[in-house]
């Protein structure tokens, strides 16, 4: 462990202790910021030094932490009762993540891994009764992931590589929202408070990716099927999540689905790397991680300014808070995979990786293109309906200077990464398209905009076809906007009407499993029938069976 990580760990411990008493104080923010900055520095050192995956993670974690340092104290002003607990737990959660990224496989790794699960659960559940289901899903998924890792870590020497990797795939895949284990994510992430959502989506899920990547150094190269599984499930999961996200009315819920999509692409990149060993995939894998952490952090933190999260009740927010609108637009444009964003750079690498790959892998290009088109639709819907147009309801907005600064930190870093993605890719020796051309383009756009804006214009109402005046309710709502696209995908059925219903077969499968388990439990619980005679009979039978076993 490097000194920088040590310093940051100490700073985080300090922050959590300070947070318990004085979460609003500058000391808390300072310690958190110090922890973040040292992490950025140490992680960057590791990444640019020897291209370590842990370095990338610590780097991005540090960036998020720095933004949170300024964002959290002010944000917690909304939760005065729980604020000390949040302020105490958030640095510990960060610490657990640092621990995971630094621990060797085995007991220490699982200690931090499961500890992270517990802290994450507390952080989600703390939001209150509404977050219960999400918290449960989160914890259950985390334990499933833990079980997979137990199998993988401890099975060494007892199990073949196929089983080890199956364990790893479940263990890390669940955390990285690998289809079909992703259902927990869109339940858990949106219900937490925004800084926690940002951490969960932006950072914690990346640990699943980190683990899968690092596992090849721990357990040797994976069997071929692992790579295929990652590519197939990753790509399919990305498409699935976007389509499902289109049917999501909750802004943060939709963002969570977008996380599943992005993670799917990263998993596919990793799978491609496992199959081919091409650096292109690796570049996509790492660049996407950082890009996603930044833009998703920005978006989640941005959504923390809103009191209402149902897209269909938002609208016209830009006018109320242009700065927030601009920053969210930046995040969403990057998230939609538009050039010259960092996510686009990653996808660009991924496209080429697939084209260069052997076998049928080039077909992945089609899936990527579909993801690209869906993401476009997806983010147009979110931004257009929430921030543009006419307001559909009363929404309280709160974005104080501290929160604003946190958002700006992320935005500036995101722009920096998008400006110079090559710099980030240097340790891999991977080149990129000439990004300057894109910046010239944007400069021209800016120029054109500046030319157009002052041109003579007159204000006038929106064109209403000459019939009755437009009302805000005439704008499509969140589901209305996506309904045509949803119709294309048979694995999701949206019944429109007064109360739209969504039928997701995958969810039914999970429900079925749950009900089956419930049925089995009732069956077993019938043994505790209350009848003493039955218990005594059981005792007698046990004796007989055990004696039989001994004697035979």
């Amino acid at each position, binding site marked *: 462990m490097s000194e920088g990580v040590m310093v940051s760990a100490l700073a985080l411990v300090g922050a959590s202790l300070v947070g318990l008493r004085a979460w609003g104080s500058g000391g808390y923010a300072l310690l958190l910021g110090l922890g973040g900055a040292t992490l950025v520095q140490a992680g960057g050192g590791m990444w640019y030094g020897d291209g370590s995956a842990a370095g990338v993670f610590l780097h991005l974690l540090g960036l998020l932490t720095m933004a949170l340092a300024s964002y959290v104290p002010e944000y917690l002003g909304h939760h005065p*009762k*729980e604020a000390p*607990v949040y302020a105490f737990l958030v640095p510990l959660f960060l610490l657990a993540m640092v621990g995971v990224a630094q621990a060797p496989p085995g*007991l220490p790794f*699982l*200690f*931090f891994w*499961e*500890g992270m*699960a*517990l802290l994450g659960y*507390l952080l989600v*559940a*703390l*939001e*209150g*009764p509404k*977050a*219960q289901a999400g*918290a*449960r899903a989160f*914890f*259950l998924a985390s*334990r*499933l992931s833990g*079980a997979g890792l*137990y*199998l993988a870590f*401890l*099975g060494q*020497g*007892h*199990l073949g590589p196929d*089983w080890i990797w199956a364990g790893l795939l479940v263990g890390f895949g669940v955390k990285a929202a690998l289809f079909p284990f992703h259902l927990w994510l869109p339940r858990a992430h949106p219900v937490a408070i925004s800084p926690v959502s940002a951490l969960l989506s932006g950072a914690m899920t990346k640990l699943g990716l980190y683990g899968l990547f690092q596992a090849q150094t721990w357990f040797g190269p994976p069997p071929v099927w692992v790579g295929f599984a990652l590519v197939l499930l990753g790509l399919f999961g990305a498409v699935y999540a976007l389509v499902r996200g289109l049917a999501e009315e909750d802004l943060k819920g939709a963002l969570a689905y977008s996380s599943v999509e992005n993670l799917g692409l990263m998993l596919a990149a990793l799978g491609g790397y496992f199959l081919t060993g091409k650096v292109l995939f690796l570049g996509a894998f790492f660049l996407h991680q950082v890009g996603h952490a930044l833009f998703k952090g920005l978006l989640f933190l941005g959504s923390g300014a809103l009191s209402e999260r149902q897209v269909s009740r938002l609208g016209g927010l830009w006018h109320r808070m242009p700065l927030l609108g601009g920053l969210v637009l930046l995040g969403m444009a990057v998230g939609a995979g538009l050039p010259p964003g960092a996510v686009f750079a990653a996808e660009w690498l991924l496209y080429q990786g697939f084209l260069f790959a052997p076998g049928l892998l080039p077909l992945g290009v089609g899936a990527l293109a579909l993801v690209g088109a869906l993401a476009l639709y997806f983010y147009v819907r979110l931004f257009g309906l929430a921030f543009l147009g006419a307001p559909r309801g009363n929404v309280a907005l709160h974005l104080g200077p501290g929160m604003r600064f946190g958002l700006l930190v992320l935005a500036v870093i995101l722009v920096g990464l998008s400006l110079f993605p090559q710099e980030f890719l240097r340790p891999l020796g991977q080149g990129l398209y000439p990004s300057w051309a894109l910046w010239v383009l944007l400069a021209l756009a800016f120029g054109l905009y500046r030319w157009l804006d002052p041109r003579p214009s007159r204000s006038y109402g929106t064109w209403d076809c000459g019939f009755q005046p437009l009302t805000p309710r005439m704008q499509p709502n969140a589901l209305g906007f996506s309904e045509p696209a949803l119709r294309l995908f048979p694995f999701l059925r949206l019944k429109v009407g007064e109360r739209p219903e969504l039928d997701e077969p995958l969810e039914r499968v999970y429900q079925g499993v749950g009900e089956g*388990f*419930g049925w*089995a*439990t*009732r*069956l*077993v*619980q019938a*043994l*505790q029938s209350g009848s*003493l005679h039955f*218990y*005594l009979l*059981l*005792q007698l*039978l*046990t*004796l007989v069976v*055990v*004696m039989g*076993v*001994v*004697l035979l």
Partner: protein
Amino acid sequence: MLYGLLLLPLLVFLGRRDKGALVRLSVLLPILSALLAPLLLGQMAGPFRLDGVGLFYLMLTDLLFALIALFARGYFSEEEAWRFYWAGGLFLGAAHGAYLAHNLGVLWIFVEGSTLASALLVYHKGGARALEATWKYLMLGSVGIALGLIGVILVYALLSGATLDWREARALVGSANPEGLKLAFALLLVGFGTKVGLFPLQAWLPDAHAEAPGPASALLSGTLLNVAFYALLRYTALMQAAGLFPFASGLLLAFGLLSLLAAGFFLYGQKEYKRLLAYSSMEHMGLAVFALGLGLPWLALFHTLAHSLAKTLAFLGASGILALSHAKEVGRVGGLFRSLPALGVPFVLALAALGGLPPFPLFFAEFKAVEAAMRYPLLAAWYLVGLGLAFAGLLGPMTQMGFGPGRPWKAQGLDLWALWLLLAVLFLLGVRPPVEVFQALEVVLWTR
């Protein structure tokens, strides 16, 4: 001196029915005994001798008892306190006897004695439900323990009636008829297993734990189960000395795993939180037996320690909740983590600890168990499945009680700091498990 240690807990009757005196005596006597006991390590007197394992359990029981007795002062009213402290004194005396006994017959007597004393604890002040639970406990426990006695007799006979002293028996057992020993062990396992709460002999356990008053439940789960487990430990060590461990291991693993899986099913959808905790005890005793079956007595010791601490914490928390809310159902209690952190935080974390999460020691214990079980990957897989089921069962109530909707309460007159003390101990044990201490204890039991 050992006799003195044995009788020390009975001095509680000096307090007569005065609650204040009873509390003082019930707290101070065990602490005194816990301080005294290490000095008596290795001493003998008649059928009694204190060795390392006995000392470990003795001190654990004493300290937990003192804490529970202290906590109980806020739980019981002036009039009914004496029932608890008297029965507690009897129980502690029986537990002392069991841990001090070096004679297998005397051990049996005190295990039975602890059953009777704890029946009084369960009964406390009556009511139809408590009566029912006590009756069932008494019947099942007595039959089980009688079956165990057959095992004791067989062991004695197999040693040609030479001795029942554990250490001598261990030396002699190698020459005993192995078939007979197997038979005896099977009977002992079913017998003491009933008291340990192994599936399918566990029926009394949830009833007794749920109907006993809160602090008594904590005593049952945190200390009583250990008494029977301790007896099982001694006999397993005998089997190991006789070279029959592979046989014993099979039975122990089977019972442990079965208990774990059954507990997993029982825990799910449990409506009363004390029953939930009782089933969790069954799960963890199953895990301890499993660890023993893996040939890791130190791990079994560690597991019981961790479980005792965590379960005492959970039951004390539960009794605190019960005292405040007068509601036994999970669904009627909610939001404690937020509305009453002094009680809710340790309670939720105790459930997390019971779920095997770091930074608590059961995580470490379960990790080590899986590690050892990996020799038979299928066994490890089932173990993980069981842990998953059990966790799923705990998760719902934990979320509801910790964070769900519910009325806020004010904590009054409860020594909630006791919970935090236990939590701190758990945390320390989890962060730095004293493995070497337990491995040193293992030498007492296992012959190389």
